[in-house]
C-alpha cells in the first residue's frame, strides 16, 4: 500500500527525534481527543447518527447540523463522532490478530530452524507477496461481508511483516548464551520461547505493531469504502466516504470530505506517535 508508505515517511519526518516535538505533541493530543470522543460519543453527539430526516437532506452547515447532513438527512457531525468507535476498534483488532499470528509464526520459525523454518518462512513470503487488498477481497468472498470479516482478512494480510520481524529478532535472542543456560536447565522449547524469549523481544515487536495501526486504519477504511467492510447503517468513516459520493456528485462535498479528512488525520497522528514510540522502545532495549 504505497499511500501508507508515504504517510509513514511524512510521519517520520514530522515526528523525528527532538527536532519537531510539536508535531508529536499535537498528534498525541489529537489521538487523545479521538479516544475521548469514541468513549463519550453518546453525550457529545448532537444527534442520533442513524436518525433519518429527509427534510434536511443535503443541507449545508446550519445551526441544526453543524457540518451539514447527508442525502438521508443524517447529521454529518454526529456520524463523524460515532465513527471514531469503529475506526479505533477495527484496527486494534487487526493489530491483535496480526501480532498474535506473526509472533507465533516468527517464534516457531526461529526456534525450530531447518525445514520447519523454511516452510513457515516460505508461507510468510507468499503471503507478503500477495496483494493485501486482493487477499482481503478473497477472504471476504468466503466469510461474507461485514466489519468482522474485514478485520480477520486484514489481520491475516498483515501478519507477514510482524512474522519476519519477530523471526529475526528471536533468532538473535535465541543465539545468546542465556537461552542455552535455560536449555541446560531442562526447560522445553515451548516454555523457553513463550515464557522467556517472548517477553524479552516483546518491546521491539510491539513497537513495530503500533506503527501497523495506521496501515490497518487505512486498509479497513478502504475495504469499507468498497462495501466489503462495515455495512450500512454503520457510521464507519470509510463507509461514509463511499456513501458521500452521491452527495459529491450533486455538489455537496461535506458528507464525503469530513470522514475522509478524519481518516487521514487519524492515520497520520497514529503514525507519528507510533514511529516515535517504536524508536523510544527500541532505544530502551536492555543490553
Amino acid at each position, binding site marked *: 500500500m504505497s499511500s501508507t508508505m508515504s504517510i509513514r515517511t511524512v510521519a517520520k519526518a514530522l515526528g523525528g527525534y527532538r527536532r519537531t516535538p510539536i508535531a508529536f505533541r499535537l498528534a498525541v493530543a489529537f489521538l487523545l481527543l479521538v479516544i475521548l470522543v469514541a468513549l463519550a460519543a453518546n453525550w457529545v453527539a448532537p444527534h442520533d447518527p442513524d436518525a433519518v430526516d429527509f427534510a434536511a437532506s443535503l443541507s449545508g452547515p446550519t445551526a441544526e447540523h453543524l457540518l451539514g447532513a447527508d442525502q438521508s438527512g443524517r447529521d454529518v457531525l454526529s456520524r463523524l463522532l460515532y465513527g471514531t468507535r469503529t475506526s479505533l476498534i477495527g484496527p486494534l483488532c487487526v493489530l491483535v490478530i496480526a501480532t498474535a499470528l506473526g509472533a507465533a509464526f516468527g517464534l516457531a520459525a526461529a526456534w525450530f530452524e531447518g525445514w520447519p523454518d523454511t516452510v513457515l518462512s516460505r508461507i510468510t513470503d507468499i503471503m507478503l507477496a500477495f496483494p493485501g487488498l486482493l487477499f482481503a477481497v478473497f477472504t471476504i468472498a468466503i466469510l461474507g461481508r461485514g466489519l468482522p470479516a474485514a478485520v480477520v482478512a486484514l489481520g491475516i494480510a498483515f501478519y507477514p511483516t510482524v512474522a519476519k520481524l519477530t523471526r529475526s529478532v528471536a533468532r538473535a535472542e535465541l543465539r*545468546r548464551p*542465556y537461552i*542455552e*543456560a535455560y536449555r*541446560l*536447565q*531442562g526447560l522445553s522449547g515451548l516454555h523457553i520461547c513463550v515464557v522467556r524469549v517472548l517477553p*524479552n523481544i516483546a518491546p521491539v515487536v510491539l513497537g513495530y505493531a503500533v506503527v501497523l495501526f495506521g496501515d490497518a486504519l487505512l486498509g479497513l477504511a478502504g475495504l469499507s469504502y468498497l462495501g466489503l467492510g462495515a455495512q450500512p447503517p454503520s457510521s464507519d468513516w470509510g463507509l461514509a466516504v463511499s456513501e458521500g459520493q452521491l452527495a459529491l456528485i450533486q455538489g455537496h462535498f461535506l458528507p464525503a470530505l469530513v470522514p475522509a479528512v478524519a481518516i487521514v488525520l487519524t492515520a497520520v497522528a497514529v503514525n507519528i506517535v507510533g514511529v516515535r514510540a517504536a524508536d523510544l522502545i527500541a532505544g530502551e532495549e536492555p*543490553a
Partner: protein
Amino acid sequence: MNEGLTVGSVSRRFTHTGPPAVDRASLRIPPGHSMGLVGESGSGKTTLARMITGLDRPDSGTISMQGHDRTRASRRARERRRRAGEIQMVFQDPYGSLDPRLSVHAAVAGAARLAGVPRSRCGDRAMELLDQVGLTEREAVARPRTLSGGQRQRAAIARALALEPDLLVLDEAVSALDVSIQAQILTLLNRLRTDTGVSLLFVSHDLAVISQVTDDVLVMYRGRSVEQGPTARVLLDPQEEYTRLLLACVPGPGWDPERVGALRREFTESEREAGRA
C-alpha cells in the same frame, strides 16, 4: 567405572569434507576432579564440551555420567531435568549469559526451583548460593545490566550451582575478564570444588589458567586428542610436538617470537608429512 563422567570415542562432523570437528575423543573425570581441555580455535574443545553438556549431539561414541548414558537427546521432561542436575555450564560471554529481564536473585531462585527446592525456600536458597560466590545482597537484586563482567560470571556460577550438578563445565569462562578478576574467579572455583565436591571441566586456550586450576589436561588440535595426562607433567615434560609448541607460545623471560614461528613452521611441516595438513 560408574562414577563421574566417561566420554568414549566421541566424534562430530559439521561438513562432509575436511577434518571432523571432533575425532574420537575420550576422557574421564572422576568425582571431585578438575580437568582442562586445551586447544586453539578449531581444536574441537568447545564442540566436545557442548556435547558433554548435551547442547550438541555426537555422531558416534558414548557419553555417560554417573553410569547414566546421555549420548542421545531425551524427549521426556523428567529425564531432561535429571540430566540438568548432573552437568551444568558457565559460558564465555558474561554479557549474554544472564537473562537481561531478571534480577540475579530471581534467575538463581528460578534455577533452584527447577532443582526441586520448595517454592517458599527458593529465595533463601538463592541468597545462600549468591553468598557462596561472593555476591552481596545489593548485587543480588540488581539486573545484569548494572553488574561488571566478574560479578556476572559469579552470578552465572551461582545459577549453575543451584541445580546441584556433579560436573561444572566452564567454557572459556574467564577469558573475557581482566586478569585480576580472573584470578579471583579461579580462586572461587577452587574453593567451591573443595566445599561442594563438584568436578570441573575447564575449556581454555590459556595455559596459565589451566595450570592454576586443573589436575589433568587434554590437549586438542583440529579435532584430535594430542596429549593427555596430569597437568603438572604435561606442562613440564610435554611429549608431543604440538604441546611443546603451545607451551613455547607462552610469553616469559627470554621469549622469542621468531623462534616460536620456526617451531610452528616445523610443526605444520610434520603435519603435512603425516598427511593431515
